[in-house]
């Protein structure tokens, strides 16, 4: 439940401050930012999206690299088995 308090006397807002906050240009900018589809915006103009894509690419490269190394590690991770086999069957 929200916290509430009763005011039986209210002070009106300062018209000067209220006037400073009123800005249709800024409002329209906000509206356009919220409604312009991403594909209509060049990538270099959106640093967040650019960084996110860069991060995804880096992670993909790392996953790919580790995927390439893992089969040989699985087959012979330390080389100990080979030595053991050689001893059993000289």
């Amino acid at each position: 439940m929200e916290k509430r308090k009763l005011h039986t006397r209210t002070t009106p807002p300062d018209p000067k401050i209220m006037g400073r906050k009123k800005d249709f240009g800024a409002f329209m900018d906000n509206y356009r930012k919220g409604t312009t589809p991403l594909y209509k915006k060049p990538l270099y103009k959106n640093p967040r999206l650019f960084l996110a894509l860069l991060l995804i690419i880096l992670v993909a490269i790392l996953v790919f690299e580790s995927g390439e190394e893992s089969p040989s590690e699985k087959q012979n991770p330390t080389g100990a088995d080979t030595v053991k086999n050689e001893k059993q069957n000289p």
Partner: protein
Amino acid sequence: MDSHHKNKEDLEREAGEVLRAQKNPAAFAPLYERYYEVLFRFFWNRTEDYDLSSDLTQHTFLKALRNLGSYQFRNLPFSAWLFRIGINEMNMYFRKAERERIVPLDLTLLREWAGEEGIDGYLEKEFTRVEKLILDLPPDQLALIELRFFEKKSFLEIGQIMKISENNAKVKTYRVLDKIRKLMEEKE
């Protein structure tokens, strides 16, 4: 909030402005200019915070402009639609934020009602209890009381804002007042 009192010509002119803004968002300017201060004051009276009032006003206008395509003119002032969005935005904000919300009330109007009901003596004597009863009302019932006893709205206007008929607005408001009266009598 005297913007609700509009004659047929005003309503039709405003409907034309909305239609133009539906086709071209930049044409929303006259509606923004007309209702900015009205909405700002509405939020200010409930927050007493310039930044928050400005944010809530901007959010209300943004939501209105984004959903303007679904707006249909039904011989009602555009402001009723705006205030409905504004009240929802404010309720949503206070549900999420750990912040105290101000409930503005005009005591003169409340005293008039208490006088009609014959409980004015109790109202003066036990104002703290009455205050608690009002503050504990659910959001939709509180909105009815605020619109009636602070914004000084007619039942027609309250109905337009709450999207109910004039008669329903009257019945619902009196039901809330009756609830308060009964609770006051119980505690007397």
